[in-house]
């Protein structure tokens, strides 16, 4: 969709809305007349575009549902394409802040994009509700203007580790994930929690992000009774196919990206039995989720996954925060404080609130892919088999103890003999 057209229609709509508001409430209308400017940093071109486009659809679904109002103000929505690279993220953040004068930034998608604008949004005191999972930005080097309503990289993998050890009774697991920070942090979380409950990670394999063939890595999977994959984007599809065709039968577990609901239509039988942990699940029967799913399917005929739901929730947080701040986002510190204090019960992912480091506390759903209960024309379905409630980024560790160890990385926790 071309932004020019949408902005123009929006402006026209805003003008009409403002005029109507003024006619009805002549006195307090001056502060309310200016639209609330909502900026989105997303990726609409390149390999990350699939998730990035879902992010925009999540925002637009919310805005349409609320008739483009938040906290009693008209919303002017501006979407910017970073192209999925850090320099682009920086330039587009400047565009949103300096040219478009937005009140809040939603996004960006990838951790390296968030790191690229991290200093800048602090200088500008710009409230930023990111989907990116760079753990340390709400842990050891917190950014006071960042609010994460999605999850850290390890937030869902830690319960997965616990579930794999205690319920699936796995003993020895090989981890395989892309060779970048999101992968390291996911597997760090899995390993720490899995080993805490008596499991053992026997090997961690790191194929590059763009690899045509996982076979050389799959060949190294041995000496285990389970596999944990953490692939993102469309890579889980390729991995699961090649895993199945290599004849391996070990049960596979994964995090929020490895079995994203948006991928269900593309998976085949090879994905049957895949167990995943995710902060959002399509099959959640609660009313806010049913409403969200039917709205987004009506508007875009897509099956929403974590990206769309994440941005929809971000919008709910902004709306609630703006309402708390009395519709006034001009004082950034006050607005940020209002955003942080938001706690919601009616989101598609269930109840959420924030810890003092601005990271979300919410449910993590353990799902298993099967055919039973499949809806929306899908053949496969993520069926929730367990729910961990109020999961924080620290899992069950005390915050101090958790923050005392280094951030999860390629080498931490180290592989030990067990």
């Amino acid at each position, binding site marked *: *969709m*071309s*932004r*020019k057209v949408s902005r123009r229609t929006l402006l026209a709509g805003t003008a009409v809305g403002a005029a109507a508001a003024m006619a009805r409430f002549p006195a307090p209308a001056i502060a309310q007349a200016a639209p609330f400017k909502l900026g989105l940093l997303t990726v*609409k*071109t*390149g390999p990350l575009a699939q998730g990035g486009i879902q992010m925009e659809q999540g925002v637009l679904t919310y805005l349409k549902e609320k008739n483009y109002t938040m906290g009693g103000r008209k919303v002017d929505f501006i979407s*910017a*394409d970073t*192209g999925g*690279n*850090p*320099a*682009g993220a*920086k*330039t*587009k953040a*400047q*565009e949103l802040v*300096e*040219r478009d004068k937005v009140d809040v930034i939603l996004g960006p998608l990838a*951790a*390296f994009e968030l*790191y*690229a604008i*991290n*200093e*800048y949004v602090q200088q500008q005191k710009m409230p930023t509700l990111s989907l990116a999972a*760079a753990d340390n930005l709400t842990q050891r080097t917190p950014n006071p203007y960042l609010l994460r309503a999605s999850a850290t990289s390890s937030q869902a993998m830690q319960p997965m580790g616990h579930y794999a050890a205690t319920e699936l009774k796995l003993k020895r697991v090989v981890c395989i994930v892309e*060779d*970048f*920070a999101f992968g390291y942090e996911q597997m760090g979380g899995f390993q720490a929690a899995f080993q805490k409950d008596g499991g053992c990670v026997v090997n961690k394999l790191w194929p590059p992000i763009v690899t045509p063939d996982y076979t050389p890595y799959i060949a190294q999977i041995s000496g285990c009774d389970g596999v944990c994959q953490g692939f993102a984007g469309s890579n889980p599809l390729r991995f699961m196919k090649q895993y199945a065709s290599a004849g391996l039968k070990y049960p596979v577990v994964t995090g929020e990206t490895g079995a994203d609901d948006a991928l269900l239509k593309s998976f085949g039988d090879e994905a049957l039995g895949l167990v995943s942990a995710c902060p959002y699940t399509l099959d959640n029967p609660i009313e806010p989720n049913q409403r969200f799913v039917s709205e987004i399917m009506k508007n875009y005929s897509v099956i929403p996954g974590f990206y769309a739901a994440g941005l929809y929730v971000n919008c709910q947080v902004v709306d609630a925060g703006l309402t708390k701040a009395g519709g006034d986002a001009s004082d950034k510190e006050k607005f940020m404080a209002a955003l942080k204090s938001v706690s919601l019960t009616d989101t598609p992912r269930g109840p959420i609130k924030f810890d003092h480091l601005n990271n979300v506390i919410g449910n993590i759903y353990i799902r298993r892919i099967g055919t039973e209960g499949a809806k929306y024309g899908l053949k496969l379905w993520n069926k929730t088999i367990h729910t961990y409630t109020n999961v924080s980024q620290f899992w069950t560790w005390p915050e101090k103890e958790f923050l005392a160890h280094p951030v999860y*990385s*390629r080498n931490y926790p180290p592989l030990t003999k067990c």
Partner: protein
Amino acid sequence: MTPRRAAIVAGIIVLIALPFAIGEDYYINIASQILLYAIFALGIDVLIGYAGLVSLGHAGLFGIAAYIIANVLAAGYGHTVAIVAALIGTLIATAGFAAVALRSAGITFIMITLALGEIIWGLAYRWISVTNGDNGISVTTRPMPFGLSLASPRGFYDATLIIFLLAMVAVAIFVHSPLGVALAGTRDQPRRMNALGYHVWMIRFLAFLFSGFLSAVSGILFVYYNEFISPQALALPASAAGVLMVIAGGAGTLLGPVVGSALVVIVQNVVSAYITRWNLMLGAIFVAIVIFMPEGLVPGVRRLVQATRRAAARRWPRAMASRLRSKP
């Protein structure tokens, strides 16, 4: 004053006045980006346009400079030390680069530079203790040369403009010097130049060093501009973008890389706000350039202007003749 000089002076005045005309910080930042990528493209143009060597690894050199800045600053040294270290470090890396790549020419040269660039990208990605991997390194301060702050968009633009003009002058002097002329000779007739007693390898080596130096300068500006460096800045698309800037603008011209840089930066950052499929549009523009002006925008426009003049002269010979006579 010849019209050429007048045009140059007018161009410089326009560039100096640009921030006042634009006013908005965002567009001043875009202008800074155009200039810093123009320096990068100028460096590549030295090789493509004047030496006939297409390099697909220059983003690696650009990135080395940026990473040296980030690391030296993180180690607690000042900006002067960081910048000097980045320039020297990148020159050394360039020498190594050139020593390997210049063993070949043509397609092999392209592939070797591509491989070298990928090696540096891989190092940036995987040598986590130095580069912080995928997450990149933040550089939180900009230098203050002579007490002038570069923190504001305008301050940064002015500094970039000065460096850009110096780079233009340096390239102009270089290509018109005996060394530059000899370089063009090695491009057109390497064996004949060799027979004439020129050391072809050494001439190319020096040109490569100069090109690497310009990449280092733009890499330093890049890291100060973005206040951040991560492996994406070194990846193959960045090198390819530099080559495309040169080819689109016109290889072997001074102005071509600048025009190419402006084209790419504007489409990527300004047009993308209005058109979702800006990548497609950029591709279409490149294809159009190749079809209608295969020599690049700057020489292509020059050709068109001359053709129109000639056509005009045929139609109104007397008026044209009098205009030509009035020329100094």
